Each structure stands twice: as C-alpha cells, then as structure tokens.
C-alpha cells in the first residue's frame, strides 16, 4: 500500500518521449545532431551549443554508481527506510538520480563505481521508473 504513495512524475511536452521510452523498456537520452553532445534531463535543444536539432536514442542502460545517501529519516511517502538515493553515471556520460534495487541498502554492498544496469519499475499505466541493479557477471 505504501508504494502507491510514491511521488509520481508528470511528463511535460519536452519530457514525454523519455517517459514513453521507459514504458517501452528503453532509457532514452538525447544527442545533439550538430555537436554530438549527449545530455539529460530532456529538452528540445542542446545545452552545449544551443542547436535545436537533437535526436532521442536508446541508451545502453549500463551505468556506474557515482554517489548516494542511505536515507533513514524522514522517509519520503512510499519508501521504507533505510533506502538508498543514488546518482548513477550512464555509460553515455549523463548522470541521473535513481534507486538501487536487488542490493542490500548498506555501505558495504553499495560500493562507489560498482557496475549497474537499468531495470524498469512499472508504477502504473502511465509511468515506469528507471531504477538500477548491480550488473550481472
């Protein structure tokens, strides 16, 4: 029941493609057609060179653990403490906030720079969140 209260993202016209992607099992990033800069979060222009010619593409889903906290209190609605709030560095360069699943939420298990892979967590018919788990092998 607690899970139902987790904050739900509400897509905007500029971010809809990202959330459509997670629904389809893709982690979509954007790349500038002019300067090849890859960036996140979504926007319809390049924050490096200002070109409006940009394309979405599916990222590999591979990432490493950049940093995190293990939150004890106060816990956000829908979360049972302690839980890690992580920032991961995607293979393509951008970083994003996420949670690490299939892993004890402890400093011993959560090693910086450990290899991760994306896992999609469907919240409802509209929103699927990109979470990450330790990479296999």
């Amino acid at each position, binding site marked *: 029941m607690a899970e139902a209260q987790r904050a739900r993202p509400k897509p905007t016209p500029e971010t809809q493609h990202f959330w459509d992607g997670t629904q389809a099992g893709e982690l979509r990033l954007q790349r500038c057609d002019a300067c090849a800069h890859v960036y996140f979060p979504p926007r319809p222009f390049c924050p490096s060179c200002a070109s409006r010619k940009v394309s979405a593409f599916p990222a590999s889903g591979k990432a490493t653990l950049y*940093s995190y906290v293990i939150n*004890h209190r106060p816990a956000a609605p829908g979360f049972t403490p302690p839980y890690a709030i992580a920032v991961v560095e995607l293979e393509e360069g951008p970083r994003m906030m996420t949670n690490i699943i299939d892993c004890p939420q402890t400093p011993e298990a959560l090693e910086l720079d450990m290899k991760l892979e994306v896992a999609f967590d469907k919240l409802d018919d509209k929103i699927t969140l990109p979470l990450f788990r330790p990479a296999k092998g």
Partner: protein
Amino acid sequence: MRRNQVAVVGAAETTKLGVIPDMSQIQLHADAALNAIADAGLKLSDIDGIATAVETPQQIAHYLGITPTWVDGTSVGGCSFMLHVRHAAAAIEAGLCKTVLITHAESGKSMIGKLPRSIPADSLQGQFEAPFGVYGPPSMFPIPVLRYMKTHGITHEQIASVAVVQREWAAKNPRAMMKDPITVADVLNSRMIAYPFRLLQCCLVTDGGGALILTSADRAKDFPKKPVYILGTGESVETPMVSQMETFNSSRAFKVAGPTAFREAGITHKDVDHLMIYDAFAHLPLFGLGDLGFMPHEETGKFIADGNTRPGGKLPLNTNGGGLSYMHSGMYGMYALQESVRQMRGIAPAQVEGAKISVCHGVGGMFAASGTIIFTNEK
C-alpha cells in the same frame, strides 16, 4: 564593482533566536528590520531600497510601511542575502537608491505564517528526483559527500570534526542554540539521518531573522556604528537538481562566486582574518575551503581536524557556531553575514582580535547557488 564604495551601517538579528512560537514569519522580518533601523539610527522613511527572499519585497515593504525606489526579490535559497548585498552595493553606487534594507526571517521551527514549499510533479525535480525518495535537504544535500570523500581522500572522522570545532565556537556565544562540548565519537554515534551523515552533522531547525542596512561609504561616516565596507563580491548559480551538478568533487557555483569576490577585493588568501562558510551540513566548509582556493580539496578535512579553524587557530571559521550549532532557520546566509559584520565591528561574542578582513561565503539550495561577500573595517 569598485572597492569600499558601500558600507553596512545597520545590522541586527531578531530580538529572540531559536524557538519563537509567538511571532509569525513576516513579524520576524519586521522585528529584525526595526532592530537594524534602530542600530543605524535611522527612521523607516529613510529607507528607499528593499531586498528580501522567500517573502516578496512587496509583502515586507508594505508591512513595514516603506516606499522603495529600488527593489530586489532575488530568491536563490540561503545565500540570497549575499546576492542582495552585491546587488544593493551596485545599485547604491549607480545612484538608484541611497539606503537599502535587506531582511531575512523564517519561522523554520514553529512554522507560523510560513509559505509551504512544494515540488510540482511536472517540474524537472518532480520528474527526475522526487520519485526516487528525496524528502527535504537531509536526503539531498549530502548526496555528493561519498564521491567527494573518495576522490579527495577525506575521512568520516575529519568531516565529524567540523561539528566538533563549531561547537567550540558556539560555547563562547550566549545566543547559540547548542553549547555543550561534543567529541568526534559523539558525532559518529549520533542518530543516523542520511548515511554518511548523522544528526550532529546536520543543521539545526530554528526560528529567527536578521536585517542589514547599506549606504554609500561617504554617508557611512556619519552613522553611529563603525562602518563595515564591502570590499569584494561574487555570485553564481548552477542547478536546482543536485543530481545534475557538473561534479560532486567541488561546486561550480562556489568556484565562480568565491574567486570573483577575491579578484574584486584584490586580496589573497593570506589576507583573510576571519571566514564564514555556510554550513547547512558538515561537508560544506570542506567544499568552501577548496573551492574558494584556500587549499586543495585533499587538505580540507585534515586542516579542520588538525584544529586550524578552531578558537586560537590560524583561520577562524564559523565563529558564531554556524548552522550546526548557532541557529539555522532555513536560509542561514543572513546569520553568516551578521557574524562577519560583528567581527568587523569588533563586537562578536568570540571576537577574533584585530580582524580586518572577513570573507562570508554562502550556498543556496543544494549547491544550486552561491554568493560571497568580503568585508573590511579599514577603508
């Protein structure tokens, strides 16, 4: 901006600090403003410029009965007041106004008349941070710490020592909330909040406010209190999303604001007698020492743990006790400015003898913004 053209001629905090259950947020603004106006020996009608944050300038101007010709509502978090000082100094020099009042107050603990802060679900934070369980500053501000520690070889004990040293300063300050001595072990055994940070590495939550009055250096000579001159200033912003900082090894906003102020002041780090670095959480003084250029980041933890910033140390830092031990109503920058002004006036509870230059560095949001003011008491 030219050096020493503008001065602080009035400075005061609210009559009470800490838990103030009998005053709303705008009345805390007014209490601080009236105290600062009295400190400067002015009348309300002398004020022709107003700046404030969170509350709007129109709210505070009308409540106080002020008709300004210059207004600044820059609201970038806890360092907004550093930016106000910078903007006010430029405005006074440009002749847009003569006497500026800057107010801060927050009913952070008692929550009386405090505007709710919420993150819309369709904002970028609402889409790309809130769903992952961030819930208030303690769950966000410390996110860069583990990376910073790994990159720069900083230990948990060194970061804990920040809280220990600041408690030593707070013990000398009758208005500090927390005055009992603590040890590194006390810090590392206090209640876990958001690993790696424990209770004693997180700021207090209190009620209070403060206000400053600025005017031109020429006029400042005629005021009752010793003028404190604005020697240098800097400001910048980076991102409202902590996850999107350029790096967790430093703060881009700090690295722009701090060095800009030093260049403007024309001073070197050796010239600094007194330093304030906004400490909402215990890692901020380390980021500040490194990004302001006092030393490489690798040395910041050891520098503090070795006692260099404690009473009697060579670089007195956060001499009021800081956000960790003095008070923290939510936007602490005003209290850091107040302590710098007290040190430059020579009236601080833990006065640094002979201090002539004070650097006051603020953060807004979770490394989202930054402002640096360098004060001097010599023109």
